[in-house]
């Protein structure tokens, strides 16, 4: 083949592939402005996080202009018309007038990840840089403490390296515990010192000191009970991930790994008094930190049945009875403000 013919073929290939690539980008870009048909109705408006109004907040997760935007609905009409704010996050949680918004935006050279603390009117109060991709967010029932977990990833998916980092912030003093791994760990009654410790999925009690979280070390996950003021945690039981404390603080909802090594989880509820647990009626694998809507009901996100680029919110009774029910489609990061 002559040189000029090869260059011609190359030029044609560049044009063709460039055209396909440009079309893909333009298609994806226009999709962001196109309202999705068939989804719940939404109007732009002011979302407030103040206690007293019984609302459910979540992030829009369907394709369209409200993807990632914080929305609210009355708690008794979850599928009703949504009020959509202009705050956009990857993960969100709120309680008593404080919200934490984990946001990841494309930066010049790498992702730009931030945790933004917002007040009841969603005004940013402070923001904190994150070392990785947002994963879990929680605010304590009083609104005083916020916690978040990010995944810190290596530079390539060929590198055997994945690590989490969990931080707890006091929004009164702005004292930040940037890494729970600095806390003293008591495991099975003894001091545990190991460098392979990872924490994720904090959930707070009402006393603004006690919290529960997942601790991973030596290939196993543990439920830990911790104290912010004492900067310490104690292990309770194994194979517990992403705990969520019930409003009456007697039970923990969590995801339990079905088989070691497999990425399959079942949602369980454990009685903290007896450490006995039971599975919920949800048979699908739940990879989320569930939220309690009230003392009897849990909400969690699952990938959409028909479209995997969307998460739907489901609920299931906490006592293991009943069946899962769709709460609202195209939503993630649920929080009940009451």
């Amino acid at each position: 083949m002559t040189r000029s013919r090869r260059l011609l073929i190359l030029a044609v290939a560049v044009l063709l592939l460039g055209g396909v690539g440009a079309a893909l980008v333009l298609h994806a870009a226009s999709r962001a402005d196109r309202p999705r048909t068939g989804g719940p109705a939404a109007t732009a408006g002011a979302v407030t996080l103040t206690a007293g109004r019984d609302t459910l907040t979540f992030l829009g997760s369907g394709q369209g202009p409200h993807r990632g935007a914080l929305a609210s609905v009355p708690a008794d009409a979850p599928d009703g018309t949504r009020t959509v704010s202009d705050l956009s996050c990857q993960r969100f949680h709120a309680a008593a007038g404080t919200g934490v918004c984990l946001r990841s935006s494309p930066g010049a050279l790498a992702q730009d990840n931030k945790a933004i603390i917002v007040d009841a009117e969603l005004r940013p109060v402070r923001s904190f840089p994150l070392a990785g991709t947002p994963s879990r967010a929680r605010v304590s029932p009083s609104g005083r403490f916020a916690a978040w977990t990010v995944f810190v990833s290596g530079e390539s998916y060929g590198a055997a390296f994945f690590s989490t980092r969990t931080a707890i912030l006091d929004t009164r003093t702005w004292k930040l515990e940037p890494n729970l791994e600095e806390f003293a760990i008591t495991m099975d009654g003894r001091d545990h010192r190991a460098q392979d410790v990872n924490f994720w999925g904090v959930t707070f009690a009402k006393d603004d000191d006690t919290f529960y979280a997942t601790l991973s070390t030596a290939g196993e996950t543990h439920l830990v009970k911790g104290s912010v003021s004492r900067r310490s945690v104690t292990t309770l039981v194994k194979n517990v991930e992403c705990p969520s404390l019930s409003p009456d603080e007697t039970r923990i909802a969590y995801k339990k790994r079905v088989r070691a090594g497999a990425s399959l989880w079942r949602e369980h509820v454990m009685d903290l008094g007896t450490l006995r647990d039971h599975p919920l009626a949800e048979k699908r694998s739940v990879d989320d930190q569930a939220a309690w809507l009230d003392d009897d009901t849990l909400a969690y996100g699952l990938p959409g049945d028909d479209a995997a680029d969307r998460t739907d919110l489901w609920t299931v009774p906490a006592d293991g009875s009943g069946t899962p029910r769709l709460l609202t489609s195209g939503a993630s990061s649920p929080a009940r403000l009451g």
Partner: protein
Amino acid sequence: MYLADRSAPSGAKTAPTDRGSGRAPAVASTVLALGTVSLITDISSEMVTAVLPLYLIAGLGLSPLGFGALDGVYNGVSALVQLTGGHLADRVRNHKLVAGLGYGLSALCKPLLLLAHSLGPISVILALERTGKGLRTAPRDALISLSTPDGLQGRAFGVHRAMDTTGALLGPLAAFLILGVAVDGYDAVFGVSACVAVLGVVVLLLFVPSGAGGTPPRQAAAPPAALPAPARPNPVRLRDAAALLRLPRLRALALCAVLLGLTTVSDAFVYLLLQRRTGIDDQWFPLLPLGTAAVFLLLAVPAGALADRIGRRTVFLTGHALLLAAYGLLLWAPDWPALPYLVLALHGMFYAATDGVLPAAVAATVPESLRATGLALVGTGQALARFACSLAFGGAWTLWGTGPALAAAAAGLLCCAAVAGHVLRPSPPVPAAPAPPDPARRP
């Protein structure tokens, strides 16, 4: 005098400019073509790498911890596939074909990512992608070495590695540009990545000469000492590959690659240690690998050329000395503001002085008919050793903590480098047979 004219560059037939006017050009056109293929392919794969965590966590709502556990397996797979790819390329006498299959397989995997929505299928697709990478590495390096005169191997590999790294740096930029235009446009990122990967295959097909370096095996060429493979165009058999390890020089290089690989702490740990040591702000953490890559990119060509001139052994060992210095700084340096820059610079210099120089040295010891197999042998040994080091370092980190673990790695590296310096010492000329071209013996 470094041109080692008695073994004519194999690419001479298809790349006549190599020896056109009696003065060798900077690099053979085949090397530039392969460098371009790698550049384009790395843009494609690093686009995916850059957005994958965000896609898994934010897009699909998965927690990727399970995925992290699978990663080690991929590395092992990739290393073993490399051996297969290298041997297959020598066997069918068509390095371009096997390399093309590897590039093609990886390109196919990118659009498939769009169809997978749970961790299982995504893991399978990424494993296939790694298989493609493993398949193409050795035949590609063989093509580079076969199109380059012996005395310019270091520079040729330096040029290739610099172009490769350029692609790796451009990939995330392209991905974030797309995500900037199209919010949550992961499908667009994967789609464009696939288009870019296909372009890489097109460039390979059009501009890389086919066959084993583009020449038929020459019987006239003086075979290296103890050549286990027939110089005749006989089929290459598995036994010949095994017999390669009877070549003293290759055995020495493979041994050193394994020994030094066993004490080379993986990049991720280095960045983690650097952050713990210096308290670099979280928002800078993702940029640390870019620092290493930038230094690697700038110095790969000069280091390769230097290796051709003063000896690959010297440069290769110096590279490891620089890595040792980086470990030392991480362990004992005072809290200078310049510490992160120094460590990253040393880390990048280590890559520049070793990543292309090792295959250049290997290429000079392996007969042409088994070039890809020889490169794969050393590459696989090194990759498996580094994987073992990752596991061991992780264990030591858990048991003893960061400082002692790194001190142990540094002590290990010092010992292994000393052994390597001894094993790779210039040997006296062997009187019985013409010695293989030995870069280390040149002044």
